[in-house]
């Protein structure tokens, strides 16, 4: 992917509108779990898109931070899917979503400890070996800190540097976390090693109350988050950027309107 290239998260809500207009993003990001088995109504369009666009896979179910064995059957199926559609890039979340064979389908916060860092490095290595490709991990949004021996930036940097995984920097998550946990998002970003970034995410969040913002991906990107993106850009980051929307997904034209705004800011 090229410098400053902008992508869009693919959603079934607007899948069938994409070829009806001239508006196209540079690339799409997909959630592989949603396409490894796909609804018959979406297959043809999906397969056309995959052959026409560069695709990045962004998973949800890996649960890299679970202290239970990796689901090798799932990973093998995932590898087959990525290979079949010639998808080179795969990213996931620095979180966990299952434990003791219980799936939550939500990104849950990890205890931030040295032992967890070491454990994550082992898991990244195992995942990369099975998938036959390097992975990127996203800084997740979190509303609760179950345990912390270190700062989040220290945790992220250590995992990324020691594991060899790349960082998927989610700018909205930094903003939401900074609000909920009362830290300065710019200071947070200053501590991130930008050289390790594979690509970035930007999305909307919901302001539930003065104390709580939730990373819903259900609204337009807020001005404060665009400002934070500009801050990252001004710091010299040129990595690809993706617009995410998962809830209350508008039609494609409106989605591309926001995409154009993103392009204008990030170019």
């Amino acid at each position: 992917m090229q410098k400053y290239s902008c992508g869009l998260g693919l959603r079934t809500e607007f899948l069938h509108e994409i070829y009806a207009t001239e508006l196209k993003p540079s690339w799409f990001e997909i959630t592989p779990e949603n396409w490894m088995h796909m609804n018959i109504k979406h297959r043809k369009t999906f397969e056309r898109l995959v052959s026409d666009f560069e695709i990045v896979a962004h998973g949800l179910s890996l649960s890299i931070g679970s202290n239970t064995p990796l689901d090798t059957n799932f990973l093998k199926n995932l590898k087959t899917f990525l290979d079949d559609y010639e998808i080179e890039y795969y990213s996931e979340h620095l979180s966990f979503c299952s434990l003791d064979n219980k799936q939550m389908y939500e990104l849950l916060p990890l205890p931030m400890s040295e032992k967890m860092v070491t454990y994550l490095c082992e898991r990244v290595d195992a995942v990369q070996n099975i998938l036959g490709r390097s992975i990127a991990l996203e800084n997740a949004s979190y509303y609760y800190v179950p345990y912390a021996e270190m700062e989040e930036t220290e945790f992220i940097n250590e995992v990324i540097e020691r594991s060899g995984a790349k960082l998927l920097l989610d700018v909205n998550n930094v903003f939401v976390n900074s609000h909920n946990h009362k830290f300065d998002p710019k200071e947070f970003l200053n501590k991130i090693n930008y050289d390790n970034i594979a690509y970035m995410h930007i999305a909307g969040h919901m302001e539930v109350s003065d104390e709580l913002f939730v990373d819903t991906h259900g609204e337009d990107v807020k001005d404060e988050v665009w400002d934070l993106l500009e801050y990252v850009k001004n710091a010299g980051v040129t990595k690809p950027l993706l617009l995410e929307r998962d809830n209350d997904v508008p039609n494609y034209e409106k989605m591309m309107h926001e995409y154009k705004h993103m392009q204008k800011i990030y170019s």
Partner: protein
Amino acid sequence: MKKEQTIQQKFIRSITTPKNASEENPQIDVYRELVYYRFLEVFEKAYPRFVKMISSEQLSSLIYDFLAVGAATPILWQVSGEFQEFVVKNNTLKMPFLADLLAFEFLEVQMYMRKYSTQESQDFSLDTGYTLSDEIEIRHFSHPIHHPEFDKNPFSFEAGDFRVLFFYNEKNEEILCEEISPFVEDFLLALDVDTPLLTRIEQVASEYEIQMQELLEILSPILESFCERGIIF
């Protein structure tokens, strides 16, 4: 990692149990709601008919009971299958048709998620041998879940033995179903590509002591329709 694992286990326990007023923690509540609504959204999509037949309190209770047991599949849409098994096994709802309804709705979900081959449409001929497509499903139900009026008053329908054929309609990219008789089911299951239909019908007429012409008039349009829709090929 023992300490970390214990922390994670405790956290999961907290977010998968209903809110307890004596243990209020707004941060935990956020996750409790996120997880609950994730499951709710999936089940509302997979079981729209079932969800309409029960109260939101009943559904909420079922989801929390299910969360306590846990979902195993990493693929979100498949969790509906685990929920189906759980609800039927721990049935506290007074719905005699519950198992049938959930099985019916989840089969539709499963069939929408399959990959189908493209069948060239064939001219129908009684001189040709046919086989039953392996992309269709025939299921037996004790309640007429497939009846278009069933949901209006499900308790008014009598139980019985219903055989329902589910198939993919390529033209509209949809899963359709229709009831078939036990006789037609047996006939379809015994189809053999090496035996022309006419020969097979003759065999059945002889076996059941039915007039050949009469049987031909009954079966021929049914089989032609199945052929047109790729149910037999």
